[in-house]
């Protein structure tokens, strides 16, 4: 057999059926589901008299709509309530396990999979959500699907998929202080562009990737979709195994050793071919801030708002100008002089315990600036509980941050946590699209320590100067 990549090995191991000029039929090991993209799929099953084929490989949690306060009361928005109620009813009817709103294990779907040990190396994982790429951090082939595909997986536990091209992104060297995983992925997207990964699966490699934690790897894989690739993965190693071990759904006893032995065979073979290769010098990664309305539009924190006229490509120039008009920013403005109204620490990109610790380390003993409203939304009920136990919740609250219940929250503004028109927010989430956090809201994507520092100062801060 010719040398294969990690992604190709997983693909081959899940091939149910292959036929000339048809997409491959892949078996799906884990199907995560949430309230927003599932109702119509369950309806489709009902309409056709079909069942969920493998409820035991399926799990649901409400995350996108849920309010982050007063969870025991009816939701303020009846439509959100209806959607979450529909998920509950559908799960009961189709026998799908659910971590419901008041369950301590509820949380953002991409936080709970790894947390429960359901996400393991070598698996195929799908979810009706584009940030399913997060699970690739474990060396799983994980990608987002639409509602029709959700219905397909419900009914068949398989998915017809066209083969993907292979792309390697290698981050070499060693990360400088204050270069976080978020800055790595923002740098990568800045380099390859928001369409750079279309049609590809990305494997992240290199010393920098090897040396970061599982949660950091999740941050990187999470934003793979922002570079246009549906899936991003990292070869499993000791860091991966240590993270999985002992979690509720992790293999135990003899199974553990057998599983690790399998996982060790997954790494890309020497000499395997990639269709596209990108190398990034990790020693040059700096804290990044997005200035525009795509995640590729970013600069290091000590930089300025770019001048659209400086772009060679007319289309890029126009896109940049549109972005600046929307963001109400002038070319030449220093990033550190942009004043902020809101700060959001949360989302499936940066709401895990390490993210909260990193933000808390910056906050310790300081206070949120006057006129800034800052919010921390943990990724799951279990992350929240752990942060409370470690004293992080008190630390945030004492500093003037709001401490909330778990969910997607202001990442996409489906619940009451939204920006008001014109408000400007430093956000640890993954999308700075126009209106993403509320109509007319303006988003700047940053790492958790950068968001925390911005909350304290009321504007962006170069962390290297603060400490």
């Amino acid at each position: 057999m010719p040398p294969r990549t990690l992604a190709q090995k997983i693909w081959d191991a899940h091939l149910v059926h292959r036929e000339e000029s048809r997409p491959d039929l892949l078996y799906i090991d884990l199907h995560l589901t949430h309230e927003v993209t599932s109702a119509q799929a369950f309806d489709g099953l009902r309409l056709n008299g079909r069942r969920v084929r493998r409820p035991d490989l399926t799990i649901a949690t409400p995350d996108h709509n849920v309010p982050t306060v007063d969870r025991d009361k009816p939701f303020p928005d009846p439509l959100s309530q209806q959607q979450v109620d529909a998920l509950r009813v559908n799960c009961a009817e189709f026998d799908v396990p659910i971590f419901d709103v008041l369950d301590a294990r509820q949380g953002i779907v991409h936080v709970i999979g790894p947390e429960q040990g359901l996400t393991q190396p070598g698996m195929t994982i799908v979810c009706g959500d584009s940030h399913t790429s997060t699970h690739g951090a474990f060396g799983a082939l994980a990608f987002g699907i639409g509602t029709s595909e959700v219905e397909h997986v419900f009914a068949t536990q398989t998915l017809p998929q066209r083969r993907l091209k292979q792309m390697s992104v290698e981050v070499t060297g060693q990360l400088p202080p204050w270069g976080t995983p978020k800055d790595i992925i923002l740098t990568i997207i800045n380099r390859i562009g928001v369409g750079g990964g279309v049609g590809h699966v990305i494997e992240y490699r290199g010393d920098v990737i090897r040396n970061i934690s599982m949660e950091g790897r999740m941050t990187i894989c999470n934003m793979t979709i922002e570079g246009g690739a549906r899936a991003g993965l990292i070869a499993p190693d000791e860091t991966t195994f240590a993270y999985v071990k002992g979690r509720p759904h992790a293999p135990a006893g003899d199974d553990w050793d057998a599983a690790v032995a399998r996982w060790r065979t997954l790494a890309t073979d020497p000499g395997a071919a990639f269709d596209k290769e990108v190398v990034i010098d990790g020693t040059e990664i700096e804290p990044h801030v997005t200035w525009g309305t795509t995640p590729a539009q970013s600069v290091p924190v000590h930089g300025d708002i770019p001048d659209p006229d400086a772009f060679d490509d007319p289309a890029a120039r126009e896109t940049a100008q549109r972005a600046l008009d929307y963001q109400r920013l002038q070319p030449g403005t220093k990033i550190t002089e942009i004043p902020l109204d809101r700060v959001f620490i949360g989302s499936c990109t940066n709401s895990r315990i390490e993210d909260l610790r990193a933000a808390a380390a910056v906050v310790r003993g300081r206070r949120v600036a006057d006129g800034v409203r800052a919010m921390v939304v943990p990724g799951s009920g279990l992350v929240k509980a752990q942060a409370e136990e470690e004293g992080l919740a008190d630390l945030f609250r004492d500093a003037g941050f709001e401490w909330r219940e778990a969910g997607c929250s202001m990442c996409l503004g489906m619940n009451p946590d939204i920006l008001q028109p014109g408000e400007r927010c430093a956000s640890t989430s993954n999308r700075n699209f126009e209106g993403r956090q509320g109509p007319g809201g303006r988003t700047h994507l940053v790492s958790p320590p950068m968001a925390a520092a911005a909350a304290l100062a009321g504007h962006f801060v170069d962390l290297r100067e603060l400490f």
Partner: protein
Amino acid sequence: MDPVATVTGHAIPLPRADVDTDQIIPARHLKRIERTGYGEFAFEYWRKNDPDFVVNRPEYQDAPILLAGPNFGCGSSREHAVWALQQMGLRAVVGTSFADIFRNNSAKMGLLLAPLEPADVGYLMQRAQDTPDAQITVDLPTQSVSIPGGWRRSFEIDPFVKHCLLNGLDDIGLTLQHEDAIAAFEAQRPALLPRTKR
């Protein structure tokens, strides 16, 4: 899904790059549990904030074709984006490139995507701007985009997607024909793989 073969009509020019799914249908309108009711919210922010936005202009009403820039449909996996476009009356999008999940969702729903070279899309955009009622034909059997007078370009489409679109096929039904293969695969899956319930 209804079969799709040929779409003819005038076209809405939207010469913007990276039009994301949050622009096509904002998240706050994803709370419905039906597949319908999204059309009026398509491109809502641009429609509300710019009276001259192309979708607002009377001369482009009821156009069945959208002319799009590169990386159209990037962002979230929401199939609602396709539903919204269809429910505002669109049946085909001609553009330079499409995001992966959006392309899959379009295939499932019967929204025909025709990728052409940037210069050719640019030509059609200019023409649609100059002459809003100028006709375009997107023809799936011949995989071509053409205009009266002879201009004609071919586009590529996955042969299986083409087959499903032309025949209005539900691919769950097709997959279920492989029930034996699925069952055989399941029989040899290692028992140590995780289950969400025991």
